[in-house]
């Protein structure tokens, strides 16, 4: 008989063949069946066939975060464990690459910090949590919902706040779940990009940008308030290639970003004065006779009025004074831009998060249009698009139970709400402005908001005026949070439900920048007791119907893979050249059309032309022409900028250990001159304070930021109570209500002062 010592055991563990021999011997001896284990099963191992050798199983996944790049990934799985991820090789956009965040995904999946079970907190914010079963969690929630319905005669006391934490299409089942409960209260709008969306709709009739891969054809590229070196790393290669082919790259940003550092020229524009700068360039182009008159005559309306406005109210000197960019530079670049066709401008989302953000985007659109760069390969006023989002929204479109009552009045719709307006019932959901969540939750009455469901969102890190938001949460009778990690919102929950990561659910993803589609397969079993949002919806419906038959229309038994299939239609198949969604198992597909925005010159505006003068815009209370609009009057000494960090996406990723290696704690970045005037040295602890609240934080001195501004990256750290929303009020941006359901928010129009702690 074989002798067994430590070395033999080690060999057996490492070598499947030896292990099999060992197991055979053990099984023959009848030992396994006799083991007094209470939990582990005996006699299963051989039959289970879990002996793996050699290669990996690969699965398709897609990063579902709110990001330009929406990368397709290949997940390598062995022994049922996801080992590593790579970028999808067939996507020419990502070219097999991922970003620093994408490569950290395995750390998210297997982080010991994940929320593992449904749990209930005894007293919000106490940290006193009890584990409960799904059945108990759903019973408590359903009983509350039924109580609300009985008290108010409707479900309007139940509110949903959800945004971009997971853009997988089936996650719109959360909205579907709410619809299936009746008419509820919805936080509608977006803090992200609505002012720019409306601006592009007024000018062109839709938000639609060229395929970023065509940027290689541009002969002149202006990166305006956008930082792709951090926020869209895959687009950088097209910018570099354009540069290699001779294009000039200009970056305009109040902050000297990594993108600015890689550009040929950088302008540190005075924050929120982008409109003045664009109009100054437009005036100079007009003066120099560089307008593409043929294009304008053929494709646009209102140019004469725009030219009149420029001639009467805009000068180079005025633009220089407003923007802080010297007049000769504005003039030179205006000539270069008009003289190098095709030329393109990438309009970032940061530059429209202002009280004049929509107006600024319109001014930039006009600059691109007047030079004849709209509708051309390599040209365009690039902002974003939703041309590839034509799914069925099967999970989202659910009917309310028969006979239920709702809100009598018009409801707003978000930019990702692709549902058609329903004929018939006059009731609707009650819509509240997501960008004023704190105020809206506090003020809603008749009935008040009694219960809040949070999904795909971390409002206490991301929503504005945090102090007010805490008060709003305190007013809630029940807060349910669905999440993967214990963040500042979960801290204020009564019940937390564990939700799956991308590796543990079926869905499909498209982007708002590139034109690719990616399948997201369930690559590994859902860990612990996590469920996908769809499964949560089905389980809630089952419980609701048990407790009150007919109270929820959401199907109670669902196969999430089938529900993924239900999102596809012939339009999606046609656009991406698919015979079946299963084709995507072999790799990503790219849309076969829409790649050059407005190439046929048929615009979506009322006139069917590019509208330098938009009556619709005027009807909505703004200027018909893309006129300059003043920036917000400072209410404190320094501007506060809270842009995206390199190591996170909004409140996600920063908590992962791999990110902490590079980005262990937050800082406020201060210009050395600004710091010196306040006696602040690098590394000092400082207090940043304004009318909304304060943040105590370490100072880092850098001349990358302007002297009149300080900068803190938005983030949620797991070991630090840092929260930049203590300083951001909920003042609206100008535009956004038209297409996104509520105006945007002036995130970068905030002010404060900083003192040594």
């Amino acid at each position: 008989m074989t002798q067994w010592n430590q070395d033999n055991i080690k060999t057996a563990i490492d070598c499947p063949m030896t292990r099999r021999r060992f197991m055979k011997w053990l099984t023959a001896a009848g030992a396994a069946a006799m083991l007094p284990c209470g939990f582990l099963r005996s006699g299963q191992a051989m039959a289970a066939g879990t002996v793996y050798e050699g290669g990996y199983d690969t699965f398709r996944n897609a990063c579902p975060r709110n990001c330009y790049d929406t990368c397709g990934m290949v997940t390598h799985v062995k022994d049922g464990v996801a080992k590593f991820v790579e970028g999808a090789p067939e996507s020419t956009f990502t070219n097999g690459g991922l970003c620093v965040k994408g490569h950290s995904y395995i750390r998210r999946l297997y982080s010991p910090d994940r929320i593992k079970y449904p749990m209930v907190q005894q007293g919000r914010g106490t940290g006193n949590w009890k584990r409960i079963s799904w059945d108990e969690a759903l019973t408590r929630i359903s009983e509350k919902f039924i109580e609300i319905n009985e008290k108010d005669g409707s479900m309007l006391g139940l509110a949903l706040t959800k945004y971009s934490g997971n853009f997988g299409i089936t996650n719109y089942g959360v909205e579907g779940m709410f619809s299936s409960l009746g008419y509820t209260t919805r936080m509608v709008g977006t803090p992200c990009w609505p002012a720019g969306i409306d601006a592009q709709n007024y000018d062109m009739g839709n938000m639609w940008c060229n395929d970023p891969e065509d940027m290689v054809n541009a002969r002149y590229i202006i990166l305006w308030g956008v930082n792709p070196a951090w926020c869209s790393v895959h687009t950088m290669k097209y910018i570099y290639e354009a540069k290699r082919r001779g294009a000039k790259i200009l970056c305009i940003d109040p902050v000297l970003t990594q993108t600015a550092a890689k550009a040929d020229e950088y302008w540190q524009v005075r924050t929120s004065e982008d409109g003045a700068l664009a109009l100054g360039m437009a005036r100079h182009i007009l003066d120099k006779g560089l307008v593409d008159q043929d294009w304008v005559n053929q494709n646009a309306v209102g140019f004469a009025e725009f030219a009149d406005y420029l001639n009467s109210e805009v000068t180079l000197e005025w633009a220089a004074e407003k923007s802080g960019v010297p007049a000769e530079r504005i003039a030179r670049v205006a000539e270069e831009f008009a003289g190098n066709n095709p030329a393109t401008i990438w309009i970032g989302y940061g530059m429209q998060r202002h009280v004049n953000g929509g107006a600024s985007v319109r001014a930039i659109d006009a600059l691109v249009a007047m030079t004849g760069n709209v509708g051309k390969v390599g040209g365009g006023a690039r902002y974003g698009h939703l041309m590839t989002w034509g799914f069925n929204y099967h999970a989202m479109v659910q009917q309310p139970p028969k006979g239920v009552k709702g809100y009598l009045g018009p409801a707003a719709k978000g930019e990702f709400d692709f549902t058609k307006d329903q004929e018939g019932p006059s009731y609707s959901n009650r819509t509240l402005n997501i960008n004023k969540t704190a105020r809206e939750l506090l003020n809603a009455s008749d009935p008040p908001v009694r219960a809040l469901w949070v999904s795909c969102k971390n409002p206490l890190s991301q929503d504005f005026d945090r102090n007010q938001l805490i008060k709003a949460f305190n007013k809630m009778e029940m807060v349910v949070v669905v999440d993967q990690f214990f963040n500042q919102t979960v801290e204020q929950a009564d019940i937390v439900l564990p939700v799956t990561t991308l590796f543990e659910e079926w869905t499909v993803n498209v982007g708002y920048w590139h034109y690719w589609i990616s399948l997201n397969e369930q690559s590994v079993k859902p860990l612990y007791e996590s469920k996908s949002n769809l499964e949560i919806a089905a389980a809630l419906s089952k419980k609701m119907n048990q407790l009150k038959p007919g109270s929820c229309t959401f199907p109670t038994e669902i196969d999430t893979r089938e529900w993924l299939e239900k999102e596809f239609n012939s339009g999606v198949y046609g656009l991406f050249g698919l015979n079946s969604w299963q084709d995507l198992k072999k790799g990503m597909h790219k849309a076969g059309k829409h790649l050059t925005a407005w190439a046929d010159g048929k615009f979506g505006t009322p006139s069917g032309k590019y509208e330098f003068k938009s009556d619709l815009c005027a009807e909505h209370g703004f200027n018909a022409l893309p006129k300059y609009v003043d920036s917000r009057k400072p209410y404190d000494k320094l501007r506060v900028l809270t842009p995206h960090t390199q190591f996170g996406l909004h409140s996600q990723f920063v908590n992962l250990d791999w990110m902490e290696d590079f980005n262990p704690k937050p800082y406020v970045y201060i210009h050395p001159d600004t710091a010196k005037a306040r006696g602040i040295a690098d590394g000092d602890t400082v207090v940043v304070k304004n009318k909304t609240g304060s943040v105590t934080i370490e100072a880092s001195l850098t001349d990358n930021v302007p002297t009149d501004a300080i900068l803190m990256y938005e983030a949620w750290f797991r070991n630090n109570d840092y929260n930049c929303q203590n300083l951001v009020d909920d003042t609206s941006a100008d535009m956004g209500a038209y297409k996104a359901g509520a105006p945007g928010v002036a995130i970068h129009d905030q002010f404060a002062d900083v003192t040594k702690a």
Partner: protein
Amino acid sequence: MYPTQQTRLAALRDFFLSRSGDDLEQACRQLNKLEKSDAAPADAMDWETAEFAFNRLFVGPMAPEAPPYASCYLEEEPRLMGESTLEIRRIYEMAGLSSPLQGRLPDDHLGLELDAALGLTSAAATPDMEAPRALWAYFLNTHLKVWVPLFLEKARNADTSHPALDLVLDALEDWLAGQDPIPTDEKTG
């Protein structure tokens, strides 16, 4: 193994696999009967605060202060489902065992490992079973005795403490210390 030792090991296992306050109270009461330690008697304990403390240390939803997974202590970077987790899965396989929660709960969760220990110590005590004996020795010496002390240290140094946890951590340490490290290079056969 003596029956009391088995009961003790089963109670430790049940404690770490507790799903509710009732589960952990029951496991603690069982241990309380068996232990000679100077820990507070079970009747004097507040089981609700014990449950809160248990979740802060081992479950969540906050990041657990002392995650009860071997790989968090054995891998170069703390993570779950690491190579060391799979090694434990293979050890279970060699004993003819597998976790019904495979792929959902990491195989190296302390509760599962204590369950495996219950099986292996039992098999190892059977005459003429040198393979299980060697396997148990390997599991004990190269695995349990390596990470459980690190886990105990982390749990004891955590911000959260509770008399019920003290009782269990003492019992776990005591049990581990009492395991006979069978010489692994002993040639038998």
